[in-house]
Every structure is written in C-alpha cells, then in structure tokens.
C-alpha cells in the first residue's frame, strides 16, 4: 500500500483541537457513569464500518487492556445475532451504526433514538453520540491518510 500525506500532522492546530475534543468526550464518559468497555465496543464497531485498520488496532488493544474478552471482540462485527451483548450495549451499537451509516440512510431512525434514550440517561446518550461523532472523525483522517498499523510486537 502506497504512503499518503498525513492529514493530521500537516495541520497541528487542527490535530490539537481534534485531540482536545476527544479528551473532553473521554472525561464526560466517566462523569456520565458510562462503562469504558461499552465505549470501546462502539469505537471498534464504527471503525469496522469505516474500514479504519489503524483505529481498530488501537481500540481493540485498549478494550483488551480494559478486560474485554477475545470472544466479544470477534463477535462484535456480528453482534445482532450474538447473545454476548447487554441491552445497553446493543442500543449503543445500533446508535453507532445508524450515525456512521448516515450517507446510506440520511437518517437516524426514531426506533434507534427511542431505544437509546430509553436505556441511557440523557447525559449518557449525548456523550455516546459525541463519542461516535469523534470516532468517525478519526476514521476519516486515518483512512484517507492510510495511517499505517503499527507492527505487532
């Protein structure tokens, strides 16, 4: 695979804002009482849909470090049929998919919104939606830049 211009590195001012944006969402996750494992599932599912290998590698390793099981990581791409995910996780994954597939649907359907706001508090829902939005941003920057996946040690 040929190398490409690194979009983030060329404009450090923008990169700084993107990282600060991500940090403010991460802070809000703890404040809202959301499980960091749920957030990693969401980030990994979004990265799967957008095809970001760099992001997937980073967040699978982070999920595993936080105690995620190998089995749930590999069932994630087929989560709807798997009994392994909680009601909250399923609502979060459905929201993540709807928000990520926007260019296919032009809509986040009412049933997805209703289920997410039923199982999450308003604050949790907002933090989750921000996290999905931010992950989509990192995916765009890294896929377009072909950011290389680090060599496995």
């Amino acid at each position, binding site marked *: 695979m*040929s190398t*490409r*211009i690194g*979009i983030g590195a*060329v*404009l450090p*001012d*923008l990169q700084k*804002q*993107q990282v*600060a*944006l991500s940090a*403010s*969402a991460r*802070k*809000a996750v703890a404040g809202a009482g959301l499980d960091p494992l749920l957030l990693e599932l969401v980030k990994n599912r979004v990265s799967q*849909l*957008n*095809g970001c290998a760099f992001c997937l590698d980073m967040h699978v390793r982070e999920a595993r470090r936080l105690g995620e099981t190998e089995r749930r990581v590999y069932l994630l791409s087929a989560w709807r049929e798997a009994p392994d995910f909680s009601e909250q996780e399923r609502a979060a994954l459905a*929201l993540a998919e*709807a*928000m*990520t*597939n*926007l*260019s*296919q*649907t*032009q*809509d*986040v359907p*009412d049933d997805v*919104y209703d289920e997410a*706001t039923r199982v999450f508090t*308003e*604050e949790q*829902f*907002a*933090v989750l*939606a*921000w996290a*999905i*939005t*931010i992950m*989509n*941003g990192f*995916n*765009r*920057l890294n*896929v*377009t830049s072909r950011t290389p996946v680090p060599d496995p040690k």
Partner: protein
Amino acid sequence: MTERIRFGPALPEAYRHLAAAQRAMEKAAADAGLDPRLIELVKIRASQLNGCTYCVYVHSRDARELGESERRLYLLAAWREAPDYTEQERAALVLAEAMTKLSQTQEVPDGVYQEATKVLTEPQYVAVAWAVTVINAFNRLGVTSHTPLPAEAE
C-alpha cells in the same frame, strides 16, 4: 419531526473544540489560497449526502453571502454532469464524496487521492480533507439531534 436531545448544550466543551477546529480549518484553507466558496461547496455536498437539512440550509445561505450563484448551488447535487465547476472544485468534491461515503466503501480510492493531490497543493488538499471531516461531525450531530432550521428559514 419530533424534538430530540441537543448535543451542544450537553457537552459545551466538546462543542467549543469542534467549533475551534472549524475556525482553524477555515484559516488553513484561506492561508492555502483556497476560495471560501469552494469550502462551502464541500460542506454542502457532504451535508447533502448525509441528509443534514440544517447544515445544507446554513451553508447554502453562507455560500450565497459569499457571492455563490443560485445555479451552482442547485446543480451541486449533480455536479459531475455540470460544466459549472472548476478542476479544483471537482477534485475537492470527489474527495468530499469519498471521505463521506466511507461506511459504504471502507476506503478513499487511490484514483481519488491522486486526482485531489494532483490538482490541489498539499496545504489545499489537507485543508479540504479537514473540511470534510469537520462537516461530517456537524452532520452527525445535526441529523441525530433533528436540529431545527434557524428561525429566519421558517
């Protein structure tokens, strides 16, 4: 359309950083010698693909204030067949579409990258790529929260 939770007030700090990213992107685009109307075209096209009514409205209005023509705005949804767009604008629009449709393709094809970097300088290319990334974020927040049109649009 039913009302939904708004994301700006829910996480004001995050919103501030996204707004700051937008300003930094616009400055980088101007520094790179890009016409602000090109950036508006990119924002509108991404917003069309993502179905963000609020973003389409606001950026069409902004583009008109910058002197954009009515014709180029209504032809934008079918820009490939229209003679109205410059080589630079076409390269930027191709990149905007590829980056916005990532969940359909899982890649930004080499042809798109090569076309964009052939026609745009490196600083211009990077500014456009950031513009697409930032507007995609606003689109996600806007669509998910059913952001209503500004009062003037009623």
